[in-house]
């Protein structure tokens, strides 16, 4: 709980952020363009045919199965899906933080700024991870070391990867804390995580993530544990800082609203595979996969007409052990036909702007126009 | 537990009347100036140093047959008040009357009889079921405690309850950890229904579930409400869910109700700045609307419930307070829950609710006409064309109506436990492989 002194003084007035559609788009495209300067490859992150399996006593869980996607420089990409779809494991695989045993990346390549991460030695990966990739995890309570001051924890990465002197490092830490909106940052360097509220801790995590000027931030459900008004603060902060620094963000979330507000492009995952991908506008306006339809239909919305019964997706997600060679969403799909049971659809294009979906029904020769 | 009865008339802030307002038969629960304070003890002698004022003077009524939504962020007291309403928490002062009877004056035996009429569904599907008991034992417990049925009649009732919540009764001997989160919640609902209650406190019943399962359970709750004539107190932090299911919505902040009214009014013309801030913060799955919103970014964190700010509790974070130049009465006088200039049943506790009504903060993106971007018309059309599709179109409720299901009850398998090696024919909705 935050003590009364922690609370806000009248000087920190709340902001009403008014954004028009044009402003946002322009700011984003500027940020992305800026970030792309001096780049070494077409995309910051190119994941190809990534498969991560977990070897458990009950069988081999194919958590991530032949997943491919790109993250552009400065872009915010969303990985959206429900629990068990493989989104978190994908992110962990990119950072090579999958616990081994029981998990292992069994195939694929991950090109980060032109370097294949899977071919790096553990030591080189560690160096790259701290400097180039920042992390924001879901639960700031457990991701921060309770026995170290936050000044120390933020400084860890800086000292390790940037070789700054103690004074220079300290200045940078204070600057970072101010940037993430922690009041009186110089005074708080020697505080411990428990002295901060949930929202503040998450800001500290963001400061740590940004401390070495990373090119990519992996944010795994960064606001799920937070209240909705705090969530709004944190999301706004992530968006603002990533634009300012040109940092790409891989945002993992189950909340379609967050994806709609934060991402430039979105990948929808289901049962270990990407089932739809496209720009955020296209995906929400013209989704081409029954799972996406079902998800969007089943959400109660604040701008809803009251009283309608929610359309639901029947059934439960499948087990990921030895999935059959058929469409994985099939058993829950109302539009299923025989072809869906005989083989798995590929990710194919829908329109021209990179929108792809994995569904027989919505292909050009499918039965849904 | 010492309790001092402090009576207050619902709408005024003064405490003059020594008696409670008479019991209105249309209300099933009446809460009057309820306070629940948790003492903080410190030092060697564990002296009381202060208290967490979780609920700090709430007066509210739950009408029979309605669903009252209660929203707020963590620490606002909504869970505490839900539990106090069914006497799972002791009150520091104030009264809770169930059907006119003061719950806190009952002894253990009398209270047990009333426990049949009021139940609770918990948030955590993992912690709310005893991991060492089978589903059958969990649902039988309330039946046995109140001696409602015995022997085979009891087993029949358990099976009936499971079907009522959409679970296949043949899995009755399984243990909770074998079920998914959504299924466990259903078991919790079945347990609550076992005693045939009139009033159920739903304490964030779907927040811990996956998105696609949330809708299933939400539909279940609304169907049960209609079928069994239940009254709900629906506590949640998700404003969209609450709007969907509630007849009236109350917003809480730091232990007090700051706004209450029908959702149509509350969500389109909120009278309290906090409600507007909440509404503006909820993400909407529509990128165009997201860009249009005028989002209030509240600075700082919620003040501590040990020392709430003086005057209006929200003034330290209130955008309207800033906009109006920090008026003094916000700092010094606690605003009463007064009628807002929209409809007679809309109340907000803000000195300047009229000013709030004039702005479009928090609701700018809601006014836009909603186009539900989910299933396209062409998809629905394809269902009509194809004779091989056995399922009913999405428009019909995805819910197993009991009398029609036969044998394997395929429709109910949509909620059923993963059947090991199920042998369903391919055209049915299958349980997972």
């Amino acid at each position, binding site marked *: 709980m935050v003590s009364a002194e922690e609370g806000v003084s009248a000087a920190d007035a709340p902001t009403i952020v008014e954004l028009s559609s044009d402003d946002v788009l322009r700011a984003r495209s500027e940020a992305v363009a800026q970030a792309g300067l001096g780049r070494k490859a077409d995309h910051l992150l190119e994941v190809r045919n990534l498969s991560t399996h977990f070897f458990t006593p009950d069988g081999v869980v194919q958590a991530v199965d032949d997943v491919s996607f790109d993250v552009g420089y400065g872009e915010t990409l969303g990985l959206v899906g429900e*629990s068990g779809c493989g989104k978190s494991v994908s992110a962990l695989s990119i950072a090579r933080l999958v616990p081994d045993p029981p998990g292992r990346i069994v195939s694929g390549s991950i090109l980060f700024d032109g370097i294949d991460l899977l071919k790096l030695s553990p030591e080189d990966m560690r160096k790259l991870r701290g400097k180039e990739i920042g992390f924001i995890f879901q639960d700031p309570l457990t991701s921060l070391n309770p026995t170290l001051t936050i000044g120390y924890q933020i400084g860890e990465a800086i000292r390790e990867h940037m070789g700054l002197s103690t004074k220079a490092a300290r200045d940078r830490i204070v600057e970072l804390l101010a940037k993430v909106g922690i009041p009186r940052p110089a005074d708080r360097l020697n505080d411990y995580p428990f002295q901060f509220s949930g929202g503040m801790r998450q800001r500290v995590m963001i400061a740590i993530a940004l401390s070495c000027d990373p090119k990519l931030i992996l944010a795994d459900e960064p606001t799920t*544990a937070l209240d909705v008004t705090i969530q709004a603060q944190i999301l706004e902060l992530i968006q603002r800082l990533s634009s300012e620094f040109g940092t790409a963000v891989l945002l993992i979330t189950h909340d379609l609203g967050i994806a709609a507000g934060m991402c430039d492009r979105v990948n929808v995952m289901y049962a270990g595979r990407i089932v739809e991908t496209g720009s955020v506008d296209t995906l929400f306006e013209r989704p081409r996969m029954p799972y996406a339809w079902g998800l969007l239909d089943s959400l109660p919305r604040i701008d809803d007409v009251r009283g309608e019964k929610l359309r639901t997706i029947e059934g439960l997600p499948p087990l*990921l052990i030895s999935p059959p060679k058929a469409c994985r969403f099939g058993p829950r799909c109302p539009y299923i036909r025989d072809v869906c049971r005989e083989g798995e659809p590929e990710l194919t294009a829908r329109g021209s702007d990179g929108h792809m979906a994995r569904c027989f029904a919505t292909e050009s020769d499918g039965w849904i126009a | 537990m010492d309790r001092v009865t402090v009576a207050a008339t619902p709408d005024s802030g003064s405490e003059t009347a020594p008696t409670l307002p008479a019991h209105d038969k249309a209300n099933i629960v009446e809460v009057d100036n309820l306070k629940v304070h948790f003492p903080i003890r410190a030092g060697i002698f564990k002296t009381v140093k202060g208290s967490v004022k979780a609920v700090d003077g709430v007066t509210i009524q739950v009408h029979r047959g309605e669903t009252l939504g209660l929203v707020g962020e963590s620490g606002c007291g909504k869970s505490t008040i839900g539990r106090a309403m069914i006497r799972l928490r002791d009150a520091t002062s104030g009264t809770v009357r169930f059907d006119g009877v003061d719950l806190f004056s009952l002894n253990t035996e009398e209270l047990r009889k009333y426990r*049949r009429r009021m139940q609770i569904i918990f948030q955590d599907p993992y*912690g*709310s079921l005893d*991991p060492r008991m089978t589903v059958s034992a969990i649902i039988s417990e*309330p039946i046995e405690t109140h001696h409602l049925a015995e022997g085979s009649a009891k087993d029949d009732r358990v099976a009936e309850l499971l079907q009522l919540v959409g679970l296949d009764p043949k899995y009755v001997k399984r*243990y909770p950890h074998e079920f998914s989160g959504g299924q466990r919640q259903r078991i919790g609902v079945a347990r609550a229904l076992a005693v045939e209650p009139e009033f159920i406190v739903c304490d964030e019943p779907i927040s811990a579930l996956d998105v696609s399962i949330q809708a299933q359970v939400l539909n279940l709750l609304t169907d049960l409400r209609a079928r069994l004539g239940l009254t709900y107190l629906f506590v949640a932090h998700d404003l969209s869910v609450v709007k969907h299911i509630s007849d009236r919505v109350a917003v809480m902040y730091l232990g007090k109700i700051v706004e209450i009214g029908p959702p149509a009014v509350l969500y389109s013309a909120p009278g309290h700045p906090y409600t507007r801030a909440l509404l503006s913060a909820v993400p909407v799955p529509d990128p165009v609307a997201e860009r249009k919103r005028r989002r209030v970014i509240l600075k700082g964190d919620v003040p501590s419930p040990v020392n709430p700010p003086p005057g209006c509790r929200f003034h330290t974070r209130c955008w309207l307070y800033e906009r109006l130049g920090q008026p003094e009465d916000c700092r010094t006088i606690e605003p009463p829950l007064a009628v807002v200039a929209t409809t007679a049943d809309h109340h907000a506790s803000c000195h300047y609710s009229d000013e709030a009504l004039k702005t479009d903060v928090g609701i700018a993106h809601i006014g836009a006409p909603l186009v539900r971007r989910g299933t396209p018309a062409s998809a629905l059309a394809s269902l009509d064309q194809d004779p091989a599709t056995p399922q009913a179109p999405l428009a019909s409720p995805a819910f197993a109506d009991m009398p029609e299901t036969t044998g394997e009850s395929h429709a109910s398998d949509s909620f059923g436990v*993963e059947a090991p090696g199920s042998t369903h024919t391919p055209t049915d909705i299958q349980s997972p492989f």
Partner: protein
Amino acid sequence: MATNTTVVPAGLAKPKAAAGPWREAFGRLVRNKLAVVGLVLVLLLLFCGIFGPIIAPWPYQQQDLQAIFANGNRPLPPFSPNHILGTDALGRDLLSRLLDGARISVTVAFVVQFVIIFIGVPVGAFSGWFGGRTDNFMMRLTDVFYAFPDLLFIILLSVAFRETAFGQALDGLLLVFVAIGLVGWVTVARLTRGQMLALKETEFVEAAKAIGVSDRKIVTHHLLPNGMGPIIVAVTLGVPVAILAEATLAYIGIGVQPPRASWGSLIADGQKYIRSEPHLVLFPAIFIALALIGFTFLGDGLRDALDPKLKGKQ
């Protein structure tokens, strides 16, 4: 959204049929090799304890004086004819006496633990459930017992009651059981109390209250079954302590009365022959060691098998 920080992704439900939490725990136990070794040793001990007199080649108190005279009045070494582990100075077969000692150890193990559970669990449950001042008071009471110097207390008791009927019962063993039990119940009481305190706050207990289940039923149906795990482990790991305590007491002459043989008394008797006939000390020591190892491995294995963390949330 549920926080799921387990390594294996969510969405994985067991496709197999129902297995209760106890059966699953048992499965985990038998996968643990050390625990299986422990289990085997414990079962072996039980077997010896129960069937000792039947399988023993000689009655434990019978003296084979002939063999002793033939051996020049010295105890017989191992692998002598008719005495596979040798004899003691009085010509009594060592193996048979060891088997009788096993009987005593097994009895100690079970009776003492029974006493401990009988006192400790209700005290802990009562204290933990009611909390507040009751809890405070009872815990201070247990502190008093905890502060006793165990061995001194037992010696005191033994000396005080040695000549009475109580002291003579069961060849002096009853005294030992009660004494060890009286000082040993505190740990179990504390454990039980801790479990009660933790489980009291869980939501399924809250649900039981909401239903109107009586306090007594909540404790017996919900709290104790869920809290039993650590208590079972503590009891299992308490057995080596009791066995060792009994052996120690027998070594210093308290408890078991001759001609009954407990492993400790065998060591005491065999001491003076340690240079010439070390087998008189070695074999009892080995038996004690195996018993201790057996229960310890089993106890550790049980702790891992019953650990609620492995089952997910509790």
